[in-house]
């Protein structure tokens, strides 16, 4: 028995010590040491967005926010700023697989810390934003501890556990640390835009632009997926907004009202032959809570979603569509 326990402990301890060492050395999620904003190759987008926000806010005094998941990488705050009052300072508060709870926690935090919330865009994914698991513990999707209120060590422990679950991450960061590679993950250190290269280039939305935007590999795999996954007709999602989520959305609306925020809710487009459209019941709930004129549903079959050239993959729309979304909602806003 003793021999068995010792054998198991030795078997577990050798790689564990090694992994702890590598984790401390490489700091893959940038949550142990202060990181260089230009050297970010970490996968936990929420943490990085939050850290950037916390570092910059005292300098730039953000007052306008886009709350979005990975789909938000096609939105551009520099374009958005054109439609905002003078003096607006927008920030793309992006978190992979952002949820209602994630958005609610961020707004709560801002309210509590008296951060002005003058303008807001909320980008909703179907089904991601309304996912049953609202607080994920995955390496990419875990929420920052300033929002959840959990101790920092707990966050680190969970991230260490995530790290050891992925040997490719271990090897990737080891290689990077040995070579002292510097990779730029996102380029804008003020707005947190995923890519702030000339957004005007996306105005015309020719197919090749969006295809050029993603790598040839992504395009290939997307086309392959589309060929085989393509449904005969567009399907409607099951109702996703539970009574609990509805209460959270009402709370979000209350915060926005308390701050007299000018806001828009965007239900993001996705390639319609592989993605369901928003359920009418859910749309009705959103309209009821936020007002129909402020809810923009781009799901289902429409001129953007029928063409896969507008997408980087079945779920992520390209920059050109991001450009058009912002253009469209403010055009509608003016009409109203």
């Amino acid at each position, binding site marked *: 028995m003793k*021999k068995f326990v010792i*054998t*198991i402990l030795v078997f577990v301890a050798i790689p564990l010590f090694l992994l702890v060492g590598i984790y401390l050395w490489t700091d893959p999620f940038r949550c142990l040491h202060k990181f260089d904003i230009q050297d970010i190759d970490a996968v936990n987008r929420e943490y990085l967005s939050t850290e950037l926000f916390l570092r910059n806010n005292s300098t730039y005094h953000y007052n306008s926010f886009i709350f979005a998941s990975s789909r938000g990488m096609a939105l551009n705050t520099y374009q958005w700023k054109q439609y905002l009052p003078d003096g607006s300072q927008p920030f793309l508060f992006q978190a992979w697989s952002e949820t209602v709870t994630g958005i609610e926690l961020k707004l709560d935090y801002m309210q509590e810390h008296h951060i002005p919330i003058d303008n807001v865009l909320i980008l909703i994914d179907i089904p991601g934003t309304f996912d049953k698991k609202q607080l994920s513990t995955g390496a990419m999707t875990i929420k920052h501890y300033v929002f959840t209120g959990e101790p920092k060590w707990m966050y680190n422990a969970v991230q260490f556990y995530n790290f050891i679950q992925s040997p490719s991450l271990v090897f990737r960061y080891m290689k990077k640390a040995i070579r002292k590679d510097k990779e730029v993950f996102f380029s804008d250190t003020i707005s947190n835009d995923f890519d702030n290269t000339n957004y005007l280039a996306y105005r015309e939305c020719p197919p090749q632009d969006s295809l050029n935007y993603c790598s040839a590999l992504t395009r290939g795999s997307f086309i392959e997926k589309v060929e085989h996954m393509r449904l005969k007709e567009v399907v409607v999602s099951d109702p996703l907004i539970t009574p609990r989520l509805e209460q959270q959305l009402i709370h979000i609306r209350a915060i926005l009202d308390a701050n007299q925020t000018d806001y828009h809710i965007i239900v993001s487009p996705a390639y319609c032959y592989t993605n369901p459209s928003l359920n009418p019941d859910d749309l009705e709930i959103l309209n009821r809570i936020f007002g129909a004129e402020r809810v923009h549903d781009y799901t289902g079959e429409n001129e953007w979603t029928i063409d896969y050239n507008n997408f980087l993959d079945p779920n992520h729309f390209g920059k050109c569509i991001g450009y058009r979304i912002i253009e469209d909602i403010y055009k509608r806003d003016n009409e109203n």
Partner: protein
Amino acid sequence: MLFNSIEYLFFLPIVFLIYWLLRNHLKLQNLFVVLASYVFYGWWDWRFLILIAFTSLCSYASGIFIERGKQKHGEGDDASLTKNIKNINSAKAWMITNIVINLGILAVFKYYDFFVSEFGALFGISTESLLLRIILPVGISFYTFQALSYSIDVYRGNIKPTKDIIAFFAFISFFPQLVAGPIERATNLLPQFLQKRTFSYEQGVDGMRQILWGLFKKIVVADNCAMYVDQVWATYDTQSGSTLLLAAILFTFQIYGDFSGYSDIAIGTAKLFGIKLMRNFNNPYFSRDIAEFWRRWHISLTTWFRDYVYIPLGGSRVNKAKIVRNTFVIFLLSGFWHGANWTFIVWGAYHAMLFLPLILLGKNRKYTNQVAEGRWLPTWKEMGQILLTFMLAVIGWIIFRATSISEAWSIMKGICDVSLFSMPMVISGLKKTLFFIAVMLVVEWIDRDKEHGLSLSKLPQWARFVILYGLILIMLEFMGHSQSFIYFQF
């Protein structure tokens, strides 16, 4: 609680340590087994604990009453003879009562809605309001059959009933095999709970390796196959013949990796507790005919039906008409055991039809040894037999996986299309899935005379560590999307 979950990673070592700390207190140790097993099972839904406790209690009581009924009185005079006949009848009545209660529970939870809706469909009556729509308790078919085997074995005199209620509850609820088998016999498992267990280093280490091998089959092979299979099955009416065939083959490996992986984890875990469970799989896809396949696939269920249904019906020592009847009875029951759906029944009938010619020609026990015994590779003839048996199994699994007979038929028609000769759909990760299937087959071929694929008995410790670390790295890196075990639904 799932074996492939983070909760289980903490649960197992804690239970292991406390269990062996109690090694000098048999009753306490058994009580702890019951407690741990109930926590393990209650993790899904604590309400189902009532059901398992009730099943255990009924079977425990039936054992005592059956034995009491079997006690002989007097020396053979008429009065004693009459009393003995009455007692035997009472023993039989207790056994039947226990069978009725247990099968009754199973019928309500698993089959009631099926029968009611089929009855309604047959007579064109709406049965919507009569349907119960109860959630199926996890593993109900497994522990029910285990409980049934006990009372039948007590009645037959194969085992003395135990008065130790805690040991009996541990026998029914022992967590490694509670939700997906192997379906243990009281003759094997119950005596192990009645005597002091000792820890063996070799057994413990072998158990850990078997757990690791089971996890590999589940999370690397089965879960990766599932990604392709689920995608194709969801859109089967738009897929090419080659894609459908590939999906059917991958499902064949998925269900094997899933179920035999679970069995390996269960048997390996039991070894850590000094308990020896029966083998449930013995390289079924290396079988040379369908009879051999059924001796190697889900052994604990096959032998259960053989011992408690087939042999009592006369087995193969009856006339040919009865052999046909008996064969169909056990295969149909076996199919129906899996669930209340016509697909399972047709799957059973399909295998009965494959099995029947072999048994009628007296060739059902032609291959009882391991294929290519004493050789590295099979002969061409053996290779052909293995491939043919495998493809017959694939056809069966299409029926099994389908949600309806018409779906199964559409998929089979889709396979027999000219598009069978086109390139199948390729999705990200397909190549690695095929590679890991090959790894599994090669490893299991090499170790086909061993209990599991990772015995590593002849290697030095450092080499074993390297292989085991390599396997863990592969599991961490290439695990598919975590899925529950397929057989939990049965």
